């Protein structure tokens, strides 16, 4: 069955019902509503955890609220990264929960300089998008040497030079054991158990209470057999890698595998598929012929498809900003909660130190529009008033044909914002993309409309050229 909402009443029934507010909510019912909306954590209801009489209820609730794709936490001393925890196959059915972290690989034959270079790339990668910081998330340490000592040394070095949680990658249990021993704290993901090494790998995972990935490229029977075996052995957290094939020889296998696994987990309650999926676009570096730019290109392309098709963690090799920039933005977009429009409050924003003859500009309240337009205006050091019309969080180019930027709403916002008291003129600069509405806005508002540039980066130039006393006078008199 596809995911169905749990009734908050069912949840409420199992809560202590004392309305003690320890969870931060007004009462148990409000907490229940938040719980089923995934807006809070069960563990915040401390009485449930602490009092013996609630033990059974707690366990029942935990079971009830467990998502079809189990959530696994990876940790370093400083950071926590969650993978999986998904409820639905398609984001419109609810929302996707945990954006897939991207791990940058290093290996144990690299020099210290190279390790530092790669770690720094992952650590310092940062892009600001609509006020959020988009980052890279993990370091995957691979054993190329196949030497336990070398791996241990590298893991140790990496761990002491990064704040990011790790993925330890080797198929050799002896090497894995050495790597784990270098990490007394933290909770890395062990990659991976295969048909050849599962018994020893399971031992390591069990002994150290660590999550273990299962790697079975191109063989889903083996993948779920391994998953079942490990779980039977008591490994409490696993992740599944059905193999990332790049290009003609297997991309199809990969897209099918990810799709089937996630379908089975979300729509058929198939437990063994209900674990985070690992994509390894890094295999492009093995499978694609050509120079490093070509390999990086196909690694990026493969990663983008896996972000859309259900990967919960990606391991990658490129060290190019252009590879990751579209990926982190795509990931942010796809994991945006469709229940909440990406909007900012409509109304008046004052930029710089405007006076009574400063320009008044109009735009929509799509968060991105606002951040870009205000950023451009600030960068151009233009003092002005910026009016955000309520376009229901939609970009201007869509709001115009979609009738979300209506002349009447513009008239409304001119009134309610109090701008009429702030400026002496009555000239409104509208986005170039809304040029079509110029006449209607004039009719609805009684203001004169000046059509601004198509792109907000041209605003400073536009103001410099057009916003001159003689022009203003002319416009007001015409």
């Amino acid at each position, binding site marked *: 069955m596809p995911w*169905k909402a*749990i*009734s*908050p*009443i069912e949840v*409420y029934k199992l809560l202590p*019902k004392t309305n003690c507010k320890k969870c931060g909510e*007004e*009462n148990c019912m409000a907490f229940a509503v938040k719980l089923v909306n995934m807006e809070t954590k069960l563990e915040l209801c401390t009485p449930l955890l602490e009092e013996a009489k609630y033990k059974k209820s707690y366990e029942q609730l935990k079971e009830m609220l*467990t998502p079809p794709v189990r959530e696994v936490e990876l940790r370093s001393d400083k950071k926590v990264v969650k993978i999986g925890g998904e409820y639905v196959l*398609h984001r*419109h059915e609810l929302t996707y929960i945990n954006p897939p972290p991207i791990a940058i690989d290093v*290996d144990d034959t690299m020099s210290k300089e190279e390790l530092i270079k790669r770690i720094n790339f992952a650590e310092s990668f940062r892009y600001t998008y609509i006020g959020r910081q988009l980052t890279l998330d993990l370091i995957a340490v691979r*054993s*190329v040497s196949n030497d336990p000592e070398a791996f241990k040394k590298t893991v140790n070095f990496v761990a002491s030079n990064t704040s990011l949680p790790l993925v330890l990658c*080797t*198929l050799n249990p002896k090497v894995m054991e050495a790597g784990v021993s270098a990490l007394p704290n933290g909770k890395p993901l062990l990659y991976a158990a295969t048909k050849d090494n599962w018994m020893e790998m399971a031992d390591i995972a069990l002994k150290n209470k660590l999550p273990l990935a299962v790697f079975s*490229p*191109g*063989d889903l*029977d083996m*993948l779920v057999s391994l998953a079942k*075996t490990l*779980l*039977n*052995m*008591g490994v409490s957290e696993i992740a599944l890698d059905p*193999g*990332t*094939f790049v*290009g003609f*020889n*297997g991309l199809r*296998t*990969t897209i099918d595998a990810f*799709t089937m696994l996630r379908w*089975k987990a979300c729509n*058929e*309650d198939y*437990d063994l598929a209900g674990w985070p999926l690992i994509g390894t676009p890094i*295999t492009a*570096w093995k499978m694609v012929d050509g120079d490093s730019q070509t390999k990086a*290109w196909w690694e990026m*392309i493969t990663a983008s498809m896996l972000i*859309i098709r259900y990967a919960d963690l990606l391991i990658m090799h490129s060290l190019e900003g*252009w*590879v990751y920039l*579209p990926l982190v933005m*795509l990931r942010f*977009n796809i994991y945006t909660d*469709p*229940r909440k*429009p990406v909007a900012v409050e409509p109304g008046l924003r004052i930029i710089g130190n405007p006076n009574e003859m400063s320009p008044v500009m109009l735009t929509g309240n799509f968060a*991105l529009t606002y951040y870009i337009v205000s950023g451009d205006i600030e960068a151009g050091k233009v003092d002005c008033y910026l009016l955000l019309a309520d376009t*229901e969080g*939609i*970009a201007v180019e869509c709001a115009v*044909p*979609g009738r979300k930027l209506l002349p009447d709403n513009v008239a409304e916002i001119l009134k309610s914002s109090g701008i009429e008291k702030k400026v002496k003129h009555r000239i409104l600069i509208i986005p170039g993309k809304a040029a*079509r509405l110029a006449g209607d806005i004039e009719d609805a508002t009684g203001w004169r409309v000046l059509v601004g540039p198509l792109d907000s980066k041209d605003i400073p130039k536009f103001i410099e050229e057009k916003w001159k006393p003689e022009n203003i006078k002319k416009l007001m008199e015409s």
Partner: protein
Amino acid sequence: MAENDKTEVLSAKIWDLLKKYGEIVLEDVEIEVDELELIFQPGVPVAIAKPVAKAVEVVKKLVEEKFKEPEMEWTGKIVEVKIGATKSEGGTRDRTFIIGGETLPAFYMFKGIMPHPPVIAMDVFDMKIKLPKSIRMHFEDVMEDPAEWAKRCVEKYGADMINLHLVSTDPYIKDTPPSEAAKVVEEVLQAVKVPLCIGGSGDPVKDVEVFKKVVDVAEGERILLNSLNLDMKLEDIAEYLKNKDVVIIAFTPMDLDKARELNRKLYDYVSKDRIVMDTNIAGIGYGLEYGFTVMERARLAALKGDTDLQHPIAAGVTNAWAAREAWIKMDPFWGPKEIRGPAWETITGLTALLAGADYFMMMHPYSIRTMKEIIKNLLEGSPGKAEDIYDWVSAKLG
């Protein structure tokens, strides 16, 4: 906006109920469970408790398990739409394309391969327009000549079709009269032998006049008209197109209800197999998630039997270039714009591909090449061989 479709939002459902049964005040009130049950009658099944088999066993043998393919049933089918006409069909094209016909969500290859591969068309404009440098460099010398531009796309870059945009007809740009615009269409029809898609300027009044002239000069060629929308006088233009051999793109701005409404209006004039829908897509970072989800929902609804949405989907992937990251100069850390641009366009295209799009309007040669390669990999590729990647963890990579 479909994304905010409150009927699918759990919390909204609850609060609606609460409003309806206004007697409940949550603040500081202890609610008796039994009372609530009476009022709510939740009826929503609680997720079935999953067995927790956690007893540690000593396992020496692999527990064998068969992976069973997903079970699913789809009752709807996307109509097949034919674009273009060859000599024997009354046109002058060398070939035609059929899009649509799907009975499965996009790229569920374990259940079956899509009946008609997606079509990649390249954009051409009827005047020199502002384009990002990384696109312009491929067309600089032909941008004054739409016929040559179209030729370049087909001959050098392998475009399946040409999207000719008559932007100069825009009253705010050049206000080119319809008869002159139609001449350009004739020239392009002469220059290339692939089927054409002809777009207007987006002005709902002017486009009606332009489209009438265009379909007259392209009579018999079964062109794809880009596009009809709810702002146009449909009783005028759709009526005019009724008995012409032309296929229509029905455009709506990321809104499924509007998509249904427009399609239903068009059914009064043209048969279903003459409608392709464009639910609108935006580039990465510029509203991609809205476009993606509307497209995915449209396709899934169609396959579940919504007869108002059973049309092939067109995607204006070129919109990706509206993202500044695709064309501005950035700190060298982010790489040259010459590669960011195609990356943006390609990934936006792939997003639409995986959501179910059939017809792609694109611009950058490298994006188009990559898209074609991915489509080939997916539709014709061979199964992955474990040995190709089994040792990736221990491989020394460049």
